[in-house]
């Protein structure tokens, strides 16, 4: 369930707010901003134009109606428009003196908006039947069903027989090859004696890695072994082998379509990001010893570099 985000014992900014040096710097910054604002206003030149279009007024009216369930009165509408004008002025002035710079939240929002916009622009077309056939041909492994095997096994229990388990399993193989009833051979166990067609992972989950590896290399037909597992030694007979197969196209169509679209979108997103990046030359001024490509960067330094990004 929920887990609260921890509070540092005393946060750096809370401590910082009590620091006289911070007070001094904040006051200085405020003076600088005020100075910039009023000096700009005093610079003269023609005043900037702000035009509130009829469409904008209609939109303000409509948002009011959605919230209040009635249209605004003339007075209310005038106040809405006035407030919008103030917002527009504040926005322009703030941008003009660079208040939008270096603001983490604004930067994140802009990046998100840009990425969403790029995604919308690069809306993916529906694939044609031929696209899907090509896609399947290019990625057969992804859609192949793994090999499955049906097998039987008789256990010589390691718990019960210790080092003699191998010899006992050999005895089982001899008896089974001579036609003994498989249900009557082997030690009692919760392990299944007959395993229907199962993937290698499925066999591994029950018998462990070594057994699964042996069972998926053994030829079908005769009882063979001993095959070792954490449970002891086994006599094993591979009953049938169903090779890996690619399901018919018709069974895969929906999944192919989804994967094709996802891959196209990925491609376009990467290409768009690269196109943008190609307009820039990026130079990173790594502090000493932190350059991941540099000669001195050890594991610890690389971890620190990650934390700085």
């Amino acid at each position, binding site marked *: *369930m*929920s*887990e*609260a*985000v*921890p*509070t*540092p*014992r005393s*946060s750096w*900014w*809370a401590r910082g707010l009590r620091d006289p040096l911070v007070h001094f710097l904040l006051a200085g910054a405020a003076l600088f901003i005020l100075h910039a604002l009023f000096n700009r206003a005093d610079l003269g030149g023609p005043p900037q134009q702000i035009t509130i279009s009829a469409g904008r007024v209609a939109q303000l009216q409509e948002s009011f109606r959605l919230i209040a369930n009635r249209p605004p009165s003339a007075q209310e509408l005038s106040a809405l428009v006035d407030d919008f004008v103030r917002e527009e002025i504040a926005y322009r002035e703030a941008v003009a003196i660079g208040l939008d710079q270096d603001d*983490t*939240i604004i930067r*994140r*929002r802009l990046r*998100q*908006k840009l*990425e*969403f916009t790029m*995604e919308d622009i690069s809306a993916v077309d529906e694939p044609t039947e031929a696209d899907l056939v090509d896609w399947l041909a290019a990625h057969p492994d992804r859609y192949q069903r793994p090999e499955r095997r049906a097998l039987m096994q008789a256990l010589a*229990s*390691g*718990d019960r027989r210790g080092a003699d388990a191998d010899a006992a399993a050999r005895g089982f193989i001899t008896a089974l090859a001579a036609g003994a009833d498989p*249900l009557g051979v082997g*030690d*009692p*166990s*919760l*392990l*299944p*004696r007959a395993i*229907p*067609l*199962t993937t290698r*992972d499925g066999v*591994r*989950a*029950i*018998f*462990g*890695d070594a*057994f699964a590896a042996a069972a998926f290399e053994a030829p079908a037909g005769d009882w063979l072994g001993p095959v070792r*597992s*954490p*449970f*002891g030694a086994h006599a094993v007979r591979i009953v049938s082998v169903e090779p890996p197969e690619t*399901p018919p196209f018709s*069974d*895969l*169509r*929906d*999944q192919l379509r989804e994967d094709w679209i*996802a891959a196209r*979108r*990925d491609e376009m*997103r990467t290409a768009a990001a690269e196109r943008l990046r190609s307009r820039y030359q990026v130079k990173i001024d790594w502090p000493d010893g932190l350059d991941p490509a540099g000669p001195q960067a050890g594991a*610890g330094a690389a971890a620190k570099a990650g934390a700085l990004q």
Partner: protein
Amino acid sequence: MAGRKRVKWALVGGVVAAALLAAACEPNPPATTETSGAASTAELPPPNPLKNAYFGDLHVHTRNSFDAYIFNVRATPDDAYNYARGQTIKHAAGFDVRLTDKPLDFLAVTDHAEYLGVLPAINTPGHPFSQVPYAGELFSTDLAVVNTAFRRFGDSLRAGKRMAEFEDMSPTRSAWAEIKAAAERHNDPGRFTSFIGYEYTSPPEGRNLHRNVIFAGSNAPDLPFSALESQDPSDLWTWMDEQRALGNEALAIPHNSNGSDGRMFERTKWNGQPIDQEWADRRIRNEPLVEVTQVKGTSETHPLLSPNDEFAGFEIMEWYIGSATPITKFEGGYVRDALRAGIEMQARDGYNPFKFGLIGSSDTHNAAGSFEEPNYFSKVGIMDATPERRGSTPPEGNTWETYTPPDNVARYSTWGASGLTGVWAEENTRPSIYAGLRRKETFATTGPRIKVRFFAGPDLASVNLGEDAGLRAAYDKGVPMGGDLVAPAAASPDFLVWAIRDPDSAPLQRVQIIKGWTGADGKSNERIYDVACSDGGAVNPATNRCADNGATVDIATCAFSADKGDAELSASWKDPDFDPKLHAFYYVRVLENPTCRWSTWDAVRAGIEPNPALEKTIQERAYSSPIWYVPTGG
């Protein structure tokens, strides 16, 4: 980025699913139909009437959970299902996670119903929720700022009141539709089972009364019933009864009773009134199972409740959830204690609201359960993604002598790589697995795939569970775990138990039967009997214990003794203290040989001493559901 389009697809899927549901409005849930389109049922293995053990996780959070999203988790329900099926997905901290042992057989995504899908909406430019004044603070880079803003959600949950700014339920509706559509997409009868589910997150004053609601089939309502509707779980049961009448069969599974400070299994109703028959019936009709083990500790029993149980102090959680407030009331907060209270009520009043079976699950908030000690990545996204953040290594430049982890890190350090649900079922399909859950033919493990069979009945002594004929006889003549033994008995019935190790974990050390019974004074008692010892050991009849098998672990490498322990342990047991007139329950606890705890693995990899405040090794275990002995007549 991909998420936005995917949500749109899911919405379309949800609408289609809703239309289909409306068309197929039957009183009983129809059998699950194949929806993936990628499999034909012709080649599936036949159902096994003697049942197979299937392993799954019924407690998984994704980005739709309000807290997971804050922990930087962006994994979707699709990611959760892909992970369960063995694929690699991204952890919130950027690294790859994958089940190294083996995929799961079934899974339910159970995001918090409260503020479901709301955090992603707040973080979506243009969404009305993104206009809340603290939206920027929630996603600030300063954790203290995030914490202050996020506290609103915890406060709202503790108070049980929905914040006014989130009364529009459409983000919750679409996230829920996405969850349902993902479950439908990944259900693959015969190979993998998915369940539609969610978490009901009631924490009155921080005391944990959470439940996971698991739906039987494709039929589920348009919105989940959340703790913002009512914090009283009995209102959830009433809602579930109503849903059942509409064809939406479901069960609820309480979890983290260890964090309830005694409230999960309290002996009164929510309002302090005594429990009555109607309330008890409604509870057990809707809550036949309890999650006994998960990442935030194991709730079987506490050393203070079971002073004679030397294995009781296992992965104990000492605090309220998400807080440094210590738990002080253990009665009512642990499973064995509740089973005992249940038979006391049964003997005194004739009903038992706590007649539940046991399961385990992860409660991962990463969309990916972390079950394996050597491969542990904990639970809450970026919060505990590194050994340092989960208290298994000190920060660079510190040693354990010079460093005390902060509160939250100390809490993460006590969390565990647990747990799994085992179900005995005929086949891996929704109807079969769900029926196994309903029957309580379930067991819990603390991570490894230990399997355990457990039967009781008269005249079973000669039955061998290691043969198909024996299993058939046990089902014919006895009752399996989760069942009631009502046969009139003069002497003890026979108890048959058989456990088998996980080939990828350690061998087994011992099998125990834990008995609770009501005395003539109406009070309950408990006793633990070792019934099978490894390495040819015998039970000492004076102590009911196996001798120590001498298994050891090398803390420097985590290698454990190769020659100790057994692959399988079994017993046919009679209760030496059986009294046919007294109510009793019996459940099995299987113990592995000791292995390294995840925190020791982290330390070994870092080449440092393990944190001295933590256990260096643990004994992984499995718990069966109980079998209840019900006296008949005089």
